[in-house]
Structures are given as structure tokens and as C-alpha cells.
């Protein structure tokens, strides 16, 4: 854009008064602000000894989990909606014929590459049966890339870990 572009409107700067021009008030203002902050309460959370307090674990987007239904079976019906919605292509599902009569398919394997995931929560929104959800666990780490590719058992175990603190959406709806 050139300086003579018609769409530019030049706004006149406000005139400085004596207080502004003498720089004295600004000097005092700056110094009092820094001194006040010097002694104010510190916001640092000393991880790992202290943990961040997560205000609402229900809407937090941390590690994924695969929910179980009442009989302890995986809820997923292998519809591939999450894998389709995923912008990072980190979900890999192998579907198989379901052994149970109430659905046609179930995931024979369900892996999420946690290193590739961008934690956007699209999979959770896409899921028609509330099978995949994002928990409030944020400090995941691993010693190798292979370790960070979570399979179905791992994702189900995360559900077992977190189900008491963060009930799944179905259960929350049931309670009303």
C-alpha cells in the first residue's frame, strides 16, 4: 500500500500537554508500575511439584480416551467420522465386523498418533456416539515416538483412569 492510497485516513496525533512533554509523569508512572509488580503476588505454578488447576475439565482438550458403554465394551462403531474430520490425519482405524448384535462394525484397532495430533477436538465433535473424547490430562510424555502412538487398549485405559473425574457426555446427559 502506497502512502498516497485513498483508503488511508491520516489521523492527527493528540497534542501532548505540559505533563506529557516534560516526561516527568511518565517517568513516575513507569517506575511505580514496575515497583508495584515487583512485590505483587506471583503467578508461577511450580510444575512438577504443583499442578495447574484446570477450571473446567469437561471442556479441556488434553489426551484422548475411548469411552466404554455400560457393559464395558468399546463404544466406537468404526464409522470413520473422526478420522475424516481430523485435520492432522492422526487417527487410524481398522474396522471389523462387530461381534455384538447391536451394531454392524467395531474398531479392530484404533490408534491415535499423539505427537501428530493438534488437540483441536474435531474428532470429539464429529463422533456420533460420543465414543472419543478429550480429557484434561495435559502432561503426557514418552521416551520414543512409538510409545506416543496410542492404541485401543491404551485409549480405553485412559477412560478407566478419568471416568470418575470426567464423566462421558452420555452419562452427563443421563444425569441431566
Amino acid at each position: 500500500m502506497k502512502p498516497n492510497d485513498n483508503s488511508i485516513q491520516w489521523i492527527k496525533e493528540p497534542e501532548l500537554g505540559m505533563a506529557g512533554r516534560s516526561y516527568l509523569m511518565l517517568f513516575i508512572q513507569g517506575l511505580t508500575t514496575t515497583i508495584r509488580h515487583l512485590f505483587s503476588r506471583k503467578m508461577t505454578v511450580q510444575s512438577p511439584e504443583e499442578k495447574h488447576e484446570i477450571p473446567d475439565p469437561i471442556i479441556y482438550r488434553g489426551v484422548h480416551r475411548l469411552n466404554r458403554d455400560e457393559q464395558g465394551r468399546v463404544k466406537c462403531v468404526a464409522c470413520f467420522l473422526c478420522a475424516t474430520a481430523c485435520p492432522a490425519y492422526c487417527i487410524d482405524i481398522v474396522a471389523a465386523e462387530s461381534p455384538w448384535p447391536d451394531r454392524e462394525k467395531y474398531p479392530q484397532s484404533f490408534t491415535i498418533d499423539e505427537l501428530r495430533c493438534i488437540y483441536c477436538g474435531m474428532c470429539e465433535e464429529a463422533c456420533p456416539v460420543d465414543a472419543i473424547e478429550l480429557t484434561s490430562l495435559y502432561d503426557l510424555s514418552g521416551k520414543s515416538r512409538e510409545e506416543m502412538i496410542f492404541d485401543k487398549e491404551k485409549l480405553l485405559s485412559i477412560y478407566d483412569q478419568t471416568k470418575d473425574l470426567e464423566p462421558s457426555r452420555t452419562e452427563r446427559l443421563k444425569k441431566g
Partner: protein
Amino acid sequence: MLPNTIEALVKIALLIGALITAAAYFVLLERWIAAWVQDRLGPNRVGIPLTKIRLFGLGQPIADGMKFIFKAEFTPGHVDKFIYFVAPMTIFMTAVIAFAVIPFGSVLPTGIFPESWGVKEPIQLVAAPGVDVGMIYVFAIGSIAVYGVVLGGWASNNKYSFIGGLRSSAQLISYELPLGLGIIGVVLTSGSLRLDVIITQQAQTGVWNFLTQPLGFIVFTVAAFAEAARLPFDLPEAEQELVGGYHTEYSGIKLMMYMVAEFLHMITASFLIVILFLGGWHFWALTDGIHSAGGDMVTWTTAILRIIVLLVKVMGMILFFMLARWSWPRFRYDQLMDLAWKAMIPCGLVNLVVVALWVEYGERLAKYTGLPTIWCMVALGWIILALTWFVFAWFDPTACDNRPRHRLISPDHQTEEIAP
């Protein structure tokens, strides 16, 4: 001869050791203050190595130093090798040797050496005692320090370094003028360039120079901030604009030399401000007892108290340096130059003229008003400060039009003046 040599070597060893340690710990202090001002805790983990004792993070400088030493030292292929190696050495060396004439206390009592050695003089707490050109020496060395920056920027063969080097050469050379003007007033009243004599003069009158010459104090402090390249004048290495300025291409121990030199400059500037304007080791009713220049007999208590008072003042000044970093926004480059040439140099000249007139006619004026001479001078100094400040705020010589040039946007000169 032998006692003098021993004395000098001990003082040099003490100074260098203390300075390097101080610079390392000031890095930690700087990080702490930065953190506290931003409502964080700052480094508090590293304590004694190989143990779990934390000591509030006091081990951090050791870790920082080790990191700098063992880091890969990378020399880019496009640099001018010789100058690239010489530049950090220049800046580090000049930062250290400037301390040769800066006193870090007054004198120690006699009786340290055995009497048979025939030492009569008390030990002066300066690495090079009795240098009559003291202030000029500090300034000469300070000017050489600019070479470290300029050569580093030039030798790096990189546009960021180059701009950083250019900026800083212009800035440091410009601000040497107000720095000089600030001290000429002090030198006029004390009649000596020796720093210990300047302190003694303030101790004798009991009125520090910042009370008698507040304008000179302000000019000198602002110029000292700019000379130490501290915010709000850290244009040479404005990291938001120039990556790292003149030391963009440096790494490892060479980068550490630049960093340490930077902190040493800050320490030097604090020492100079304290010695010239804030009374050095003098504090009322605590370290008095001086009657003639250097000839006072100090006891061990007084000697140690004086060192402590001086160091506490310097520490306070350094804290102010570090707080200032977060208090005010950085000056733009043209504003920085405007401030030096349009505000600081005229202010320094006003101060110089007033002090010179005072030295010539002050006694008569004091006799005329009937006030004690020194208080008359204090009153005059503050009146001059208020007047000058008011005049400068009224005419505002540093004001500038921040818009792009008007002619370019007026309809008459629309096409021909705009470069493609």
C-alpha cells in the same frame, strides 16, 4: 617496591575476581527482576551442583557459565576471522581495565605490612592509586569499547549485526558528549579529575553533587544509560528488531565475553554515577571524619563501613538500571539521537555555564544573600533545573512528526515523488 607490587597484584586479583563474579550474579539478578516485574518467580531451581539443594537458584550463574563454555562455538564461514576474534576481546578488556582508576572504598589503615618494610602510606582502595587523569582515562577506555561493538558488527558480515554496529557507533559517540558535559561541572567544583578527590570533596562539604548540580546529574545519568546500552536506549541490540544486534553471529565463550562486558559497563556506569554525584563512600554521620584530602586516619570500622556504603549505593543504582529496563519503552532511533543532540547537550551546556559562573562569582553571591555558600548553590542548582526543564518541555525540541511526509500524500505531488 616489593610491598607496592604485592599490594597492586592483590588488588587486581580481587577486582577481577569480584567483577567477573558480580557480572555473573548480576545476570541472575537481572533475570530475577525481569521475572518479578512480570509476576513470575524467575530462576529458583539450580543450587549446589550434584545435590538437590536449591538455594533460591543461586547456582544458576555456574550453570550459565558452564553452558556458555561447553556450547558448540560456531564461527560462520563468511566472517572476517581476525576482526571477528579481536572484537569481543577488545570490548571485554576495555570493560575490565576501566576499573583501574575507580575506587571501591577509601583507604585501609596502616599496619598491614610489617614495619620493617617501611610502608608509610595507607593502602588506597584503587587498583592504580594517584592517577591524576582518572576521569579522562575512564573516558578514553570507554571510547575504545565502542570499537568492540563496531568491529563485531562489521566482521560478522551480516546485515543485522551491521545495522546494530552502525546504530551503536552513532549512539555511543553521540552520548559521549553529554556524558562529558555532565562531569565537567563536577570537575570544576572539585578541581580534580581524580575520582577519590571528587569523593573527598563531597565528604568534606557533606553535600553530594546531585544536590548542587541536579541538572548535571540527570544529563550524566541519561548519558550513562545510553553508554551502557541499557533500555530504554538499547538500540545496538534491540532484540525485537535486530535479532541480537552486533553479536548475532557470536556464540559460546565469545558471546559470553560480550554479555559480561555489557554487565561490566553497567557496573562501571553505576560506580561513576555514585562516585561523581551520590557522594561515593560518604554517608552523613556514618563515614565522616575526613578533614584534609586523603590525610585522615581511618580505623578498620570506618574503612569497612565506607566500602559497604559505596557498594550499597552502587547496588541501588544497578537495581534502578534493571528496573528501568521494564519501566519505559525503548526510544526510536531518531528520537534517541534527538534526545542526545537537541535536549541532553543543551542541558549539559546550561549546567556547565551555571557551574562555571558559580565557581567565579559564587562567593560574592553567597555573601550578598547571606546564606551559607553551599546551600546557596543547592538552591541555585534546583532553580536552574526547574527552569531548564520547563523551557525544554515548553518548546519541546525533540517533538517530531511521526506521519510519512505530507508532501507525498498531498494531491500536487502524487506521482513523481514516490519511489516504486
